């Protein structure tokens, strides 16, 4: 019997190793690109909701506690403890998923989907204001050109035409949405590289490159990682919650009154702890990579659950 139980545990660990390699692949790809584009990944991270992620960390940790207590309950033959702890674990896992869904929805509202075609109202407004200013500047340069001598005039006129043609370019929705989203994070001081070319004068004179200047196109790549890695994690959570509900039903039907069957709960708990462990790495690598402040995180969470009015 003891050997049977040891074999069951070992089998679960073999499965978990395949899972480690599965998530490892995603983390490895992430690491590779992060080394290539460190500033862009930090900018992407700065636009994420650390408030929700932080609360979710504690929800998941507590669910790891309750499933361990569930196993103990089964081991000592207390159906009541087992049922309660399984239920609590299910609830904590569901709360995690609920908040995660809310977070995805807020990301969607902010238009932070790679390849998105629609500007958010705020982004459309900001973009219109910037292009209008750009166009006006172009007009001004061309007007100035009239008062200058030939060579200078041609140069000014061409620079003005360049600014006007830039102003006429259609906006890349994600990039514009991202700029608005990042403007809410006061700890983030980086500027988009696609604006610097004309905001800081002619090429070569730009000296004000900040520590976090980023290329919005590469931030889209970060967001691909964000959605696929958290999405895979969410998928694992959903499977885990399905298993928990199944075990709750089994508990109610007296299946676990035969206490050696606590191995079922233990195997399940191994999986659940593993999902928690993945989150322990997702949190620092995706969410905490960029600049954030505790105050902003709290505000983000309040806003997400509807405790704060207005603002972000």
């Amino acid at each position: 019997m003891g050997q049977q139980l040891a074999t069951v545990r070992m089998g679960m660990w073999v499965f978990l190793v395949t899972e480690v390699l599965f998530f490892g692949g995603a983390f490895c790809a992430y690491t590779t690109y992060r080394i290539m584009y460190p500033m862009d990944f930090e900018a992407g991270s700065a636009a994420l909701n650390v408030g929700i992620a932080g609360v979710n960390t504690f929800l998941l940790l507590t669910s790891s506690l309750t499933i361990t207590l569930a196993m103990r309950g089964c081991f000592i033959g207390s159906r009541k403890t087992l049922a309660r702890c399984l239920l609590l674990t299910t609830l904590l896992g569901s709360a995690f998923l609920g908040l995660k869904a809310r977070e995805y929805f807020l990301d969607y509202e902010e238009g932070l989907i790679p390849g998105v075609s629609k500007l958010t109202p705020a982004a459309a407004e900001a973009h219109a204001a910037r292009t209008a200013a750009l166009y006006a500047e172009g007009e001004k340069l061309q007007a100035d050109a009239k008062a200058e001598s030939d060579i200078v005039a041609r140069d000014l006129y061409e620079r003005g035409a360049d600014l006007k043609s830039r102003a006429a370019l259609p906006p890349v929705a994600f990039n514009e949405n991202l700029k608005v989203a990042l403007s809410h994070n006061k700890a983030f001081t980086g500027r988009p590289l696609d604006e610097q070319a004309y905001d800081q004068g002619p090429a070569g004179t730009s000296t004000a490159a900040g520590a976090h200047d980023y290329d919005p196109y590469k931030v889209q790549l970060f967001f691909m990682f964000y959605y696929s890695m958290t999405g895979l994690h969410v998928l694992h959570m959903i499977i885990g919650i399905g298993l928990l509900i199944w075990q709750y039903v089994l508990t109610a039907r007296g299946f676990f009154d035969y206490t050696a069957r606590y191995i079922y709960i233990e195997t399940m708990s191994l999986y659940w702890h593993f999902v928690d462990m993945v989150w322990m790495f997702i949190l620092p690598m995706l969410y905490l990579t960029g600049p954030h402040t505790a105050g902003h995180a709290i505000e983000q969470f309040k806003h997400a659950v509807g405790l704060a009015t207005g603002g972000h």
Partner: protein
Amino acid sequence: MAHDHHPKTDVHIEEAVTHDVAPPGRTFVVFFILVGLAFLALFVGFQNDLGPWKVLASLCVAAVQASILAVFFMDLRQADKVTWLIALSGLFFSGLQFLFTLTDYMTRYLGVL
């Protein structure tokens, strides 16, 4: 023992001898240590002037968290050698994955840059 009249009790005793399921007290201690480390992880995440050290510090905290989780909650503490071997093989093969991917990508553009 499978033919015993009181399988519940006997299996319990046999398991209790060979394997112990942590009492709630110990579980709570481990839990509070993990909560402390989660606060530490967030604290490190909010230090915006660490530069490249931030990710290193964050990963160290995560590694400690994951180890405690694996040893206590996932019960590697009592696991036999084969289970340890399997668990560590996961680390080993991920290590290889990182090693060969990064040595490739990080040296690809040396001649160009």
